[in-house]
């Protein structure tokens, strides 16, 4: 059966969500427009900038390159949920302390991307950190401060 409008049931930041969506609606537009979760940003809309990064079933994805209709049954986590849980509080503090953001547009995507690397224990050196965040554009900082912040958290978490 094909349809232009679909009913989907999914978990968003731990809450059960039932919504009716257009087939053509992207995940990030659904989160922002239908659920009011505007922490995920819409930048390039073709997978280049990383501002729309969210987690689907535990893995980071481009929110602009998945359809909301594909998320029926999925577990979605956005910057709002990850922030509220406290899981990235140290990383957020490090970004603030080191001026790793200026306008903040890229920051939610940057935090979620960095968190995946840190959780997987992959933030072993600056080159690896740079490679991992290569899909997230920041037009303010020049990246050095972002790499500093991620590296600092890799060290403090590693020492715990």
């Amino acid at each position, binding site marked *: *059966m*094909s*349809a*232009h409008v*679909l009913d989907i049931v999914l978990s968003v930041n731990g809450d059960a969500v039932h919504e009716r969506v*257009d*087939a*053509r609606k*992207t995940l990030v*537009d659904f989160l922002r427009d239908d659920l009011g979760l505007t922490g995920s940003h819409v930048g390039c*809309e*073709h*997978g280049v900038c*990383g501002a729309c*990064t969210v987690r*689907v079933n535990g*893995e*980071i*994805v*481009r929110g*602009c*390159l*998945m*359809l909301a*209709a*594909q998320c029926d049954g999925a577990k979605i986590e956005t910057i709002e949920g990850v922030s509220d849980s406290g899981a990235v509080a140290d990383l957020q503090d490090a970004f603030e302390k080191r001026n790793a953001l200026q306008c903040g547009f890229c920051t939610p995507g940057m935090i979620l*991307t960095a968190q*995946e*690397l840190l959780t997987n224990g992959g933030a072993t050196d600056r080159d690896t950190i*740079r*490679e*991992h965040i*290569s*899909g*997230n554009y920041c037009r303010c900082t020049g990246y050095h401060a972002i790499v500093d912040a991620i590296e600092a958290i890799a060290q403090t978490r590693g020492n715990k």
Partner: protein
Amino acid sequence: MKPAPFAYAKARSLDEAIALMGENDARLLAGGQSLIATLNMRLSAPELLIDINGIGGLDGIALKDGMVEIGALARHAAVERSDTVAKHAPLIARAMPHIAHPAIRNRGTFGGSIAFADPAAELPACLLALGGEIDAIGPKGKRTIEADDFFKGLFETALGPQDVLTAVRVPTATNGMRFGFAELARRHGDYAIVGLAAAAKADGKKLGDVRLAFFGVGETPIRANKAEAALAQGNVDNAVAALDLDPSDDAQATAAVKKHLAGVLLRRVTAQLLGREQ
């Protein structure tokens, strides 16, 4: 931009996907990491997307009869993490980190990359360099297509309008084989300005059965046959001189720059093949 309206269907079987493709102006939705970008930019506007992600059994990675078989729906991230690929298809393992970025590799599929056949993409060139083969299923049943016969033109393959790519196979690497991979991109993970995937048999200090597959320099990944022959003769300068690529200017570089960079990559990859990587 936002996509033009389309209908969405979740196929539960290959038969269902094939039938749906026959009735509609449809596109298959696998990882969607290229397709949804083209929809968002309104570069394509199909009537129907057929989501094949729910079809079971298409995401395996396994050894089969001396070949490494990678299912169409295996995510790039799974291929990148696979011990089987690392051990038995090292060229592919070497190429994986160059494919886009982690968030895209979590979602994009191996089969999707081959079927989309972007001329600047890594995996079609790897498949060509390895002499791999592609399994497809359509209304008339299953068939297998050699990599050398698969890439027909710009985003054009041997797949018919109702064919579904189901798996890709490459020969298992043997001790005598050498592999090389290099690409130049403005940003790590972007499509290559020029790239090269290569395989050869190492015979003492000489190379045999050289297969050089360039990407980003034409409408398809391209074998450089004359350079292959020259390299088998043992002379990298002659091989570079024998490169007869005919790239077009694009947004990233002029044809002249691409041709120059192809020579640079050939020297680097030759060093890899000879075990003299700097």
